[in-house]
């Protein structure tokens, strides 16, 4: 039966939306075949409804027996709050036990300060001498290098100054020589005059 706009059984079981249902009602009014098919479905449903429910021959009930009780771990596992509380309690117990039974470090209540000081002193002496030596050597080397550089610079300045002095002396001597010559000439000229 394909002439109906929607499945006739969907309509029969109330599966269609309101608008679709109205379309089916209108279709059934005008289609005798679909109307007869719908009537057969209704008769079938009526026949099926004639079958009544029966009472169970015995009541089902459980007694409070360990056989039927969930085991303690099942009850625990099946309850979120209980499981959370149990986990927290277990963690707290573990922390407590750890705090009580963990091994304590063997610390002497009165330490031998003299021995410690001697050991520390020896260790310091052993380490300080090479360190000081190395530092002194490094410092001396740095100082020697700086001194050498200063000496070199001074020597160079001295030589430059000496060269300059030599030039100045030579020029001065030349100038004096020229002045002397001029005086000689002047003197000679004055002597020759009457």
């Amino acid at each position, binding site marked *: 039966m394909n002439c109906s706009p929607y499945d006739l059984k969907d309509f029969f079981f109330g599966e269609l939306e309101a608008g679709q249902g109205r379309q089916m009602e209108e279709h059934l009014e005008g289609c005798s075949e679909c109307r007869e098919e719908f009537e057969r479905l209704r008769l079938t449903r009526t026949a099926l409804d*004639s079958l009544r429910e029966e009472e169970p021959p015995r009541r089902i009930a459980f*007694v409070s027996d360990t056989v*039927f009780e969930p085991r303690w771990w099942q009850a625990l596992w099946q309850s979120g709050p209980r499981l959370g509380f149990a986990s927290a309690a277990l963690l707290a117990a573990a922390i407590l036990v750890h705090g009580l039974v963990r091994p304590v470090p063997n610390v002497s209540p009165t330490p031998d300060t003299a021995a410690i000081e001697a050991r520390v002193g020896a260790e310091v002496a052993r380490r300080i001498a090479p360190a000081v030596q190395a530092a002194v050597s490094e410092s001396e080397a740095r100082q020697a290098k700086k001194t050498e550089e200063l000496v070199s610079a001074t020597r160079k300045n001295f030589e430059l100054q000496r060269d300059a002095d030599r030039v100045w002396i030579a020029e001065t001597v030349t100038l004096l020589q020229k002045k002397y010559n001029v005086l000689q000439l002047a003197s000679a000229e004055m002597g020759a005059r009457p």
Partner: protein
Amino acid sequence: MIFREVEDRDLIAKARRGGVEAYNLLISRWEKRVFNYLLRLVRNREDALDLSQEAFLKAYQNLGKLEDAGRFGPWLYRIAHNEAFSLLRKRKPEGDAEPPPTGEARSFRMFPIELTLAVKSALARLDPDQREAVILKIYQGFKFEEIAEVLSCPVSTVKSRLYTALDLLKDTLAPIQTRGVQ
């Protein structure tokens, strides 16, 4: 719907804490429906009762796995379905169903008891999947989505089984109803 002072979900919460009496109250609310579902499916009263007890016991032991207490019904039927089909698989193929009434027998008006027997016989001739779809929809009044949840299959499969079953039942039962019942 009868007003219930205590909702199923309250009873389930108590039963989860080990409250057997709360669970017994829950059973009393569901046992008749579950028993009739199983009875029409396996067609044997003792088997139906045994399966009911087994289903309720398994439900009790697995209450913690029920995520939504508001879905107890479909969840319980799912367990009952598994129990029933476990039994049906162990049984021999169903071949003891009565044949459909002959033309002569179908020509008379029936007494109500005869109609009941005719309906039982017609249901027995369906295969278990089709019969279960009819039981859950017509006798138990579940929605298609709920049936799909119970059977763990698509709604389209549920409809296909139901509509095929209805066509088969219609051929047998509609003529009887047309002739009338005395």
